[in-house]
């Protein structure tokens, strides 16, 4: 039998080293575990500093003993390769394990064990943990803001309808696949816009919505009989004409009467709020800032000096000012330049402001992608007889946009997390509602719960977005 050399563990006595090492590590973890979960210090008979560092020392020796190269045991090898490559890494691994064990009990106790969710007033929250009752009571406000309770079904219905319309892509048959891009880029945002401004907003304006739908349906039905050569012009001109006819010629008198009778109650945008407002603002800013950014990035590379310098000016201006200033300007300064009787809704102004602001960032991200393409791609497209737009739409942009998916996702995530700033113009989305709720005299002292709740919601939204962007990347990956 070989002599054991504890400083140099080797393969010959693998099980001696393995058992000793594993027992030492287990003891060290056990000590920390008891200490943290049951508050018992079983090594307290030792002098202070030694008892404090004992788990670390034991674990360190244990990990040293099991660090055997090519042991032939798969599990041991993977541990050695990943968390136990040398003394320093072993030390860090132990530290991380200890910190996790140490921090579990207080977290568990705050989130679950000592938390309260029953009841409906502040009085039930007597424990040392979180007071989820607060979130429960205010949940409605956090979701819908000051939107009247009786009308909240309108928001729910709109969101469900939009979510459903958004999934249409999965059900489309082969024949309609080629129209999907058009649908998502043009039709879907328009539908969403109608839903939000005529259904969630309501009021007599709701009838505009109905006229719009009637006009659209009639023109689609007639559209089947129009030769495909004219369809493009047809679908631009006819629905708008029909809409105007319906509104101002056929139903003008009825509009007023019906408006008095049974239109949806008008809810001004100032009353909107909570998570639903976060969604509305993010959604519209996302779909507006992308095309604007795209055109700015193309404009910046244009040969026409006017377009080029206009684009550069726009990009540099919006990148150069802080978002909070832009929002202030949009609500305070902007109305001063408008005629007296003209009024643009606060929410609309905010959406335009954020869209332009983020468009500048999107433009620079896309420009990075455009510059990454080799000049040969432009040459090849030109040599096949493509003009500027065909070249960009068919050849350049598909490649450039694919390259910048991570960058765009980055900008979009930042945009979603920027939306709480709209509190400066008095619109209260979820974080704004939290700030409002925490100053309510009956519910003082629960800021922590509110912010944890908001963080979790934001994390879910942002993580879903980043996962989606990653999927897109994988989907459009064609190299090799």
């Amino acid at each position: 039998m070989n002599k054991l050399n504890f400083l140099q563990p080797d393969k010959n006595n693998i099980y001696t080293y393995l058992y000793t090492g594993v027992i030492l590590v287990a003891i060290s973890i056990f000590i920390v575990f008891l200490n943290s979960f049951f508050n018992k210090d079983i090594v307290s008979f030792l002098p202070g500093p030694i008892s404090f560092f004992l788990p670390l020392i034991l674990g360190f020796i244990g990990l040293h003993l099991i660090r055997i190269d090519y042991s032939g045991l798969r599990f041991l090898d993977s541990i050695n390769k990943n968390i136990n490559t040398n003394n320093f890494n072993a030390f860090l691994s132990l530290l991380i394990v200890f910190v996790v064990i140490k921090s579990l009990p207080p977290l568990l106790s705050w989130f679950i064990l000592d938390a309260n969710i029953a009841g409906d007033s502040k009085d039930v929250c007597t424990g040392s943990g979180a007071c989820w009752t607060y979130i429960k009571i205010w949940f409605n406000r956090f979701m819908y803001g000051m939107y009247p309770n009786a009308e909240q079904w309108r928001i729910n219905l709109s969101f469900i309808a939009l979510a459903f319309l958004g999934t249409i892509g999965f059900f489309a048959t082969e024949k309609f696949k080629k129209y999907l891009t058009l649908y998502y880029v043009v039709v879907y945002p328009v539908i969403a816009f109608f839903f939000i401004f005529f259904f969630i907003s309501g009021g007599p304006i709701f009838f505009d919505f109905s006229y719009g739908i009637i006009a659209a349906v009639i023109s689609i039905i007639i559209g089947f009989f129009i030769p495909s050569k004219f369809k493009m012009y047809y679908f631009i001109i006819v629905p708008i004409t029909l809409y105007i006819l319906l509104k101002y010629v056929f139903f003008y008198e009825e509009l007023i009467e019906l408006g008095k009778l049974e239109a949806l109650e008008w809810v001004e945008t100032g009353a909107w709020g909570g998570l639903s407002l976060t969604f509305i603002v993010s959604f519209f800013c996302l779909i507006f800032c992308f095309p604007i950014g795209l055109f700015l990035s193309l404009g910046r590379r244009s040969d026409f000096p006017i377009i080029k310098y206009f684009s550069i000016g726009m990009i540099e201006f919006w990148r150069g000012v802080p978002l909070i200033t832009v929002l202030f300007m949009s609500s305070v300064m902007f109305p001063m330049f408008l005629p007296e009787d003209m009024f643009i809704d606060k929410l609309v102004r905010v959406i335009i402001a954020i869209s332009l602001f983020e468009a500048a960032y999107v433009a620079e991200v896309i420009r990075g992608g455009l510059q990454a393409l080799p000049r040969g791609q432009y040459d090849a497209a030109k040599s096949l007889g493509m003009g500027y737009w065909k070249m960009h739409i068919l050849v350049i942009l598909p490649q450039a946009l694919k390259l910048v998916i991570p960058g765009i996702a980055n900008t979009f995530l930042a945009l979603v997390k920027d939306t709480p700033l709209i509190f400066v113009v008095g619109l209260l989305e979820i974080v704004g509602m939290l700030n409002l709720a925490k100053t309510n005299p009956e519910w003082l002292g629960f800021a922590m719960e509110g912010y944890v709740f908001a963080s979790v919601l934001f994390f879910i939204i942002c993580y879903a977005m980043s996962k989606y962007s990653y999927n897109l990347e994988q989907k459009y990956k064609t190299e090799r």
Partner: protein
Amino acid sequence: MSDKIIQITEMNKWFGDFQVLKNINLEVEKNKKIVVCGPSGSGKSTLIRCINRLEEHQQGSIVVDGNELTEDTKDIEKIRAEVGMVFQQFNLFPHLSILDNCTLAPIWVKKMPKKEAEDLALQHLEKVQIADQANKYPGQLSGGQQQRCAIARALCMEPKIMLFDEPTSALDPEMIKEVLDAMVNLAKAGMTMIVVTHEMGFAKEVADEVIFMDEGMIVERAETKEFFANPKSDRTKLFLSQIL
């Protein structure tokens, strides 16, 4: 009589202050195969890039198939659709499959129905012997296959003239042959071709005429046999002695 499909007269071109092409006069008749050779930096590539106006010339005139190349953009796209071009770096569109690479321009530029365009593409891919790779992406093919696909892509526009800009320079020696074979077949089918290449074997086999360029000027232009048998200028002799 054979008509002249390309007519270049008194053409000059500068990059900044540097004159790349000096007083170029060149006439190409229909169905002729012309090889352009010369040392690097002599303006060969620039010359053929001028023929479909990927580069603009500053003086003189270029007439392609009866249309003069000028600032008028609309004309340019029509002319480019009639002039196929194959590049040194292949320049396939990496986001599209081989078949889509070939059908993209016929469908969107020539407004050909999709089915017809695909049939045409498969026909041309068959000619360059990569029809079986039609559904792969360019990144999955070897250099030689990519270059043959690029030839097929240009042919799908049914051009009257084909320009080749050093089509074999970026390839491994083993792959050069397969590309040259495709080009020889094309030449035999009667296409008008202008080829910038260093492959003198190819020149001897298919070219009707050889043009030798140096320092932006056409130094010598002669029938292929004549060119290789007794070159006139000293510069040509020197070049040939080095390359052969």
